[in-house]
C-alpha cells in the first residue's frame, strides 16, 4: 500500500465556485478566500501532480480568453484515469509479441501502459512546475513529438470537457467556455431554430440531468 498523497492547492488555483454567464465570461467566487483544498491522489505523488498540473496549464492555459486546465482541475482527472482501468490497460489487447515500430495506421502497438508512459515522461519534466511560463513552454516543445506528450495533450482536452464526475471540468467550466450544455435532455423546441445565432443554454451535469448518482468507470474496477 502506497503512502497517501494529497494535492494541496488554494481554492484560487483549482476548482472553486464558478458563476455562470454567457459567452465565456466566468468568474470565481471563492478565489479571494485563500482557502486550501486537499485532494487525495490515486496515482501521482504530490510532486508529480504539480508537474502535470503545470504542463496541462501550458497546453490549455488560463488567459484573457477564459479559464484553463488549472481552474478545471485537469490534473485531478488525469490522476484518476491513470489509477483506473484505462491507466492499467485493462481494456487493451496486451498479448505479445509487441511491434514497437509499427506503421501508424495499426494504432499504438507498444508494451508500456499509460501509467508507465507517464512515469517515464515525468522524468523529462522534473522541476517544470518551478519554471517561468516561457521556460515551461520551451521544455514542452522538446517533448512535443513524444507519445507521452500526445497522451498528455489528449488527456488535458478530456479533463477540460468530460463530465465533472471524472474529476475535471470543475463546475462545468470547460463546457461554459465552448457553450456546450452537457447532457441536456431535450432540444426538441430549439433544434430547428436559432439559425445563425449562438444558442447557449445553461449547462447541466450528468448527475443533475439524470437525477441519479452515476459511477464513472474509473471507480468501478
Amino acid at each position, binding site marked *: 500500500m502506497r503512502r497517501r498523497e494529497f494535492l494541496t492547492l488554494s481554492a484560487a488555483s483549482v476548482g472553486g465556485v464558478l458563476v455562470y454567464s454567457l459567452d465565456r465570461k466566468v468568474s470565481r467566487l471563492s478565489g479571494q478566500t485563500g482557502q486550501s483544498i486537499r485532494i487525495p491522489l490515486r496515482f501521482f505523488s504530490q510532486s508529480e501532480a504539480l508537474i502535470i498540473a503545470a504542463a496541462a496549464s501550458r497546453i490549455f492555459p488560463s*488567459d484573457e480568453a477564459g479559464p484553463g486546465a488549472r481552474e478545471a482541475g485537469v490534473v485531478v482527472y488525469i490522476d484518476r484515469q491513470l489509477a483506473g482501468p484505462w491507466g492499467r490497460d485493462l481494456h487493451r489487447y496486451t498479448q505479445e509479441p509487441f511491434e514497437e515500430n509499427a506503421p501508424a495506421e495499426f494504432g*499504438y*502497438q507498444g508494451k508500456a501502459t499509460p501509467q508507465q508512459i507517464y512515469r517515464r515522461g515525468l522524468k523529462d519534466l522534473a522541476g517544470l512546475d518551478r519554471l517561468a511560463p516561457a521556460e515551461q513552454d520551451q521544455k*514542452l516543445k522538446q517533448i512535443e513529438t513524444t507519445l507521452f506528450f500526445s497522451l498528455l495533450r489528449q488527456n488535458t482536452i478530456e479533463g477540460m*470537457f*468530460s*463530465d465533472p464526475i471524472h474529476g475535471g471540468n470543475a463546475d462545468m467550466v470547460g463546457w461554459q467556455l*465552448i457553450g456546450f450544455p452537457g447532457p441536456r435532455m431535450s432540444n426538441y423546441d430549439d433544434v430547428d431554430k436559432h439559425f*445563425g445565432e449562438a*444558442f447557449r443554454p445553461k449547462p447541466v451535469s450528468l448527475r443533475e440531468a439524470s437525477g441519479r448518482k452515476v459511477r464513472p468507470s474509473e471507480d468501478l474496477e
Partner: protein
Amino acid sequence: MKTLPSVDVLIVGGGWTGLLMAKELGSRTSLSVVVLERGQPRRTDDYGGDMDELDYAVRLRMMQNAAQETVTLRHNPGERALPLRQFAGFLPGAGVGGAGEHWNGVFPRMLSDCFTLLSSTIEKYGAAKLPEDHSIQDWGVTYDELEPYYTRAELLLGISGKAGNLRGKQIEGGNIFEGWRSAEYPTPPTKIPCFSALFREAAKSLGYHPYPTPAANASQTYTNPDGIARPGCTYCGFCERFGCMIGAKAQPTNTLLPVIQKRKNISIRTGAQVRRIVHDTTGSKGKVRGVHYIDASGQEFLQPAELVFLASWTLNNTRLLLLSKIGEAYDPATNHGTVGRNLTHQVNFPAATLFFDQPLNRFMGSGASGITMSDFNGDVFDHSGLPFLRGGTLFALSNGNRPIANFGVLPPSESSKWGSAWKNKALHYYDRTGRITFEAEHLAYKSNYMDLDPTYKDYWGDPLLRLTLDWRENERRTAEFGTAKGMEIARAMGANEIAPFSGLRSYDATRYQSTHIQGGTIMGTTPERSVLNPYLQHWQISNLFVLGASSFPQNSASNPTPTILAQTYRTADAIAERYLKNPAPLA
C-alpha cells in the same frame, strides 16, 4: 464439459438479427428458442445515466473488450499481421442488443442494382470495366424479392423519412433514385438542424436532389405492429456510441426484447462465449449438433440443438466457421474455398470540413437527423468516361457535436497544437465547424479476406481472426470524385474556409470509418463461390443459418441494418413456412 438438455432453436448472438429471429420463430411457433449472448444483460432503462462522452464514446463502454478478443490486420498476404490493440476504425458491440444499441440509426435501403452488381455492370459496361483482382458477385436475391421485407423492417422500427419512389412514381423531396417502395415511411422526417439545412439549400441550388436521411430515431411517438410503443426523439445529441436514454432510437432492447420477454419459450443466456459449433460432417454433407460455450464463471457446456443460427456479427460469424472447421477456408492463392472471402469495409470519410463565421449550435441533433443526396451513388450517374465503378452518398448529419471528439479541429491555415494561440482558435471554431461525409461502396477483391491468425490468441487460447485488407485504385478514384463533389457543395454553403479529405492511402485502422464491415460467410448463387444460399442457409449443412452482413458479397454505400433485417425476415418466413415442414435445403 456438461451436456445440457437439447433445444429446438439455438441462436449465437443477441443483436438485431439474433433477437429478430428469436422473436419471429418464438412467437410464430412453440419451438424452444435459446439465445447465447457473450456480453451483459441490458434493459431499456439502463441508459438513464449514460450520456457521458468519456466513458461511452471515448472509453467505449458498450463495445467488445479488446483485452479479451480482437482481430489482427495486415495490408497484403506478404505481411505479418498485427493485432488491433484497441478498437478504433470500427466498433464491435457487446451485450444484449449488440451494435444495434449504440448505432446512429441511419436507415437507407440499398439501391436496386446492388443485388445484381456483377451482371448489371457487365451488361452496361462490359467485363473489361471490372477491376483486375475483383471478386464481385450477384447476391442470389433481388431488390424486388426483398422489398416487402424492407417495408416490414421499416414498420418494426418506425423509420422516419420521405419516400422518393412510391411504386415507380417519383416524388420530389424524397430520394428519387431509390428502388420502388410499396409504402411511405411509417413516420415523417426528423427535424432538420442548422448545418444540415445549409447543406440541403446548397445541394438544391446546384440542381441535386437532397432528401431527409431515413432515421430510426423516431420523429414522433410510434407504435409498431407488435404493439410496442416508443416516444419521439428529443434531439439530445447522444446516439452514436450511446444507448438512447428515452428509447426513441429503435434498439433491439426497446423494439424486440419486450416481445421476447413475454414468451416463455424464448430465453437469453448472457455471459455465454461460444467457442465452437459442434457438427458431424462427412464429405460435403452434414448436420450441426449444437454449440460448445463457456460461461462467465469458466464452466464449459455443450448445448445441443436441432437448428442453429450464427448471428454474432461479421467477424465472429466468420471466425466461428473457421474455428469449427465448417466448410473450406478461402485461399487467395488458388481462389478455392469460401469461408473468409470477400472481406469489405465501407469507404467513409469527411469529403469536406467546413469552417464558418457563424455558430451552428451543433450540440443539438440525433444520430440520423440530417440531409443525404444520392445523385452520385451506385450507377445513378454514367461511368462510361470515369476511371472507376460505382459511387456513394454525400450527407450532412447533425448527430450531436460532443466536445472531447471535436474540440481542436482547426482550419488548415492554423498550425498550433497547444498553448494560448491554439486555445483561442479552438474556442472560436468549436461550434463553427461541420463535415460533409462521403459514404461509398467497397468492391470485393480476391486478396481482401479473413483467416485465422497464426500468432495471436484470445483470452481463452483460440486464434484471433486475421484481416487482410487494403484499398485499391477503384476506391481511391471514387474517393477523389466524392471529395470534389463534397467540396463543390461546401463552397455553396457559405463557409469561409474548407478543408478537403486528404485521400485514401493504405487502410488505416485508427480512423473511425464505420462499423459496416462485411463478408466472410457470403451468400450467392453457387456453393463454389459462396458459403450460404439465398436464404442464408449453409449450402452443405441444412440446419445451419448465418445472419447479418457477413452474408454481403460486397459493400454497398448504404448502412447495412435495413438489409440485414429484411434478409432475416425473409429467412424467418422461409423457415416457418417451408423448412419446419421439411428440413432440407431451401435453394
